[in-house]
């Protein structure tokens, strides 16, 4: 698409336009829609969060502004614009101003390699996945800067927690990335999606019996990277006022808020690209028909990828309003003693599966059988994990005193 953008810009400006004009044209052709999209994601998901949290807690949520409160976020945005922009007396003014920009830039830059459709990607880097892994840390630095510059003990505690959490959970997240890279044999985002073409069980989630575990560990790590509950220790309203952004008000606070929701979209879209078939619907004939026309392929592809991402964002919200916050030591324990070993196990065995099975297939002349074997075992492991997890959680809940004493059956 970057080629197409250049043609578009040439068409608008004329082919003899100076280099800088064309450079600015290509940048504007992408920067404007992405800025709009980030704001739109923020608007929609903040409204969704309020409605979903309200319904989980048997409330209605915002109902006054617009139908079912749909315009509430815009009203709040206007309010934040009009609010006084406070900088505390003892604050480090330079870092205080820089922090929200760093946090937002880190998330915004990720959109450069997040695809929306087969051709709708700003730049399909050869190292796309690695780029995302590298750039993700920039947001953490923004959060650390915010906590330090505020000169407030709650903010500082929040940012120290953020630093711990991000440093820890980068490891399981990176292991999940490497697992996908080992299976795909590429780091390019579009190629990773292309390889998941075909029916549902061709998605990387079901590619071999270890991928469901990789997906779950990626998803948990991504919750921690976004500082979403149950890993919202850096904000922890009940302990730290509101953590790293305690001292922020007005638009600076709004930018932190927007960065958080944009980051939720980025990690969800990445999960869709890496494990859930990207822009493919998972029904081979439909995908084949769509691929025939570039226009419909991209339009429907974008719709598919956005729908899947918002489904994952919904799960993030659902978890946030269901689970209590973990303690700091539980957070570390889960990461270093549970998820890192699982991640290593998954990486080693997925790599072995990928390397050895083609040989086994070539030896007994049944090459075609082995991809099916991977998909079938992958599906079985996925179902076992989901059903087993559900039964286990149900058992834990039913064993609690509050469940036994409460009369739920009336």
């Amino acid at each position, binding site marked *: 698409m970057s080629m197409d953008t250049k043609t578009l810009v040439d068409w608008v400006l004329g082919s003899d336009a*100076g*280099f*800088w004009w064309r*450079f600015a044209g290509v940048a504007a052709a992408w920067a404007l829609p992405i800025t709009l999209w980030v704001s739109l994601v923020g608007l929609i998901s903040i409204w969704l969060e309020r409605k979903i949290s309200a319904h989980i807690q048997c409330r209605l949520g915002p109902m006054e502004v617009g139908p079912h409160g749909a315009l509430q976020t815009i009203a709040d945005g206007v309010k934040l614009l009009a609010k006084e922009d406070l900088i505390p007396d*003892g604050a*480090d003014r*330079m*870092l205080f101003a*820089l922090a929200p920009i760093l946090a937002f830039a880190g998330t915004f830059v990720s959109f450069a390699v997040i695809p929306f459709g087969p051709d709708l990607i700003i730049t399909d*880097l*050869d*190292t796309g996945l*690695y*780029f995302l*892994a*590298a*750039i*993700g*840390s*920039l947001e*953490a*630095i923004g959060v*650390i*800067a915010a906590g*330090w510059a505020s*000169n*407030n*003990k709650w903010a*500082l505690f929040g*940012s*120290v927690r953020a*630093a*711990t959490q*991000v*440093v820890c959970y*980068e490891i399981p997240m990176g292991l999940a990335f490497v697992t996908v890279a080992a299976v795909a044999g590429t*780091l*390019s985002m579009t190629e990773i999606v292309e390889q998941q073409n075909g029916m549902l069980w061709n998605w990387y989630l079901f590619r071999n019996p270890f991928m469901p575990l990789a997906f779950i560990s990626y998803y948990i790590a991504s919750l921690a990277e976004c500082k979403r509950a149950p890993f919202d220790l850096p904000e922890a309203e009940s302990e730290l006022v509101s953590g790293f952004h305690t001292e922020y008000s007005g638009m600076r606070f709004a930018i932190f808020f927007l960065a958080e929701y944009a980051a939720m979209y980025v990690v969800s879209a990445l999960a869709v690209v890496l494990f859930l078939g990207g822009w493919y619907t998972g029904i081979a004939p439909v995908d084949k028909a769509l691929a025939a026309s570039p226009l419909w392929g991209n339009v429907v592809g974008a719709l598919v990828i956005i729908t899947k991402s918002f489904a994952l964002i919904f799960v993030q919200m659902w978890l946030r309003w269901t689970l209590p916050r973990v303690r700091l030591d539980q957070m570390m324990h889960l990461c270093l003693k549970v998820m890192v070993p699982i991640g290593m196990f998954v990486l080693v065995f997925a790599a072995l599966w990928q390397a050895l099975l083609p040989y086994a297939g070539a030896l007994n002349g049944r090459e075609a059988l082995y991809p099916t074997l991977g998909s079938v075992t992958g599906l079985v492991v996925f179902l076992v994990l989901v059903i087993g997890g559900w039964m286990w959680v149900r058992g834990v809940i039913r064993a609690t005193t509050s469940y036994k004493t409460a009369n739920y059956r009336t």
Partner: protein
Amino acid sequence: MDIDFGTIMFFALAIVAVVPAFMVVLARDIVRVAFWLLASLCGVAGLYILLGADFLGLTQVLVYIGGILVLILFGIMMTSKDPLHEKATASGKRSPVTGLVTGALVFAVLAAVIVGVGFEENKGVSGGEPTTTKLGEVLLTDYVLPFELVSVLLLFVLCGAAYMARRRREDAHA
């Protein structure tokens, strides 16, 4: 407008890499030092990418900014007794002579190494295919021994750090 885009980008990135590097030395507040270092490291990463070494540039971001800089900040916040007020860098007795001699020595060693290497023209090693392909091949064939040795060394360091940081058994009960 004959100036090459690459040249302009080179000088822009060089300024981003060098000016903050001076500020790292000159700034008084140790956290500000860390953030000037962030800018300088970003500039160097940009230079790598400008040279076509995209993997190296991203590794610079991942390792130095995502890992080391976060750990430096973390270390400052965890170790200072009163992080909110003790902001200035520890200033013991300073001797300009020692500083000058050390600086000159470091500069001499670095200059000798840089001049001695003899940079060749960029031969376009990757030639169209992703740089990661070639890097992966070289790391697992020609340089497999150093590669594995470094990873074993890192494992030792990891175990050593865990050993030193763990609580002694008698302390655990106290």
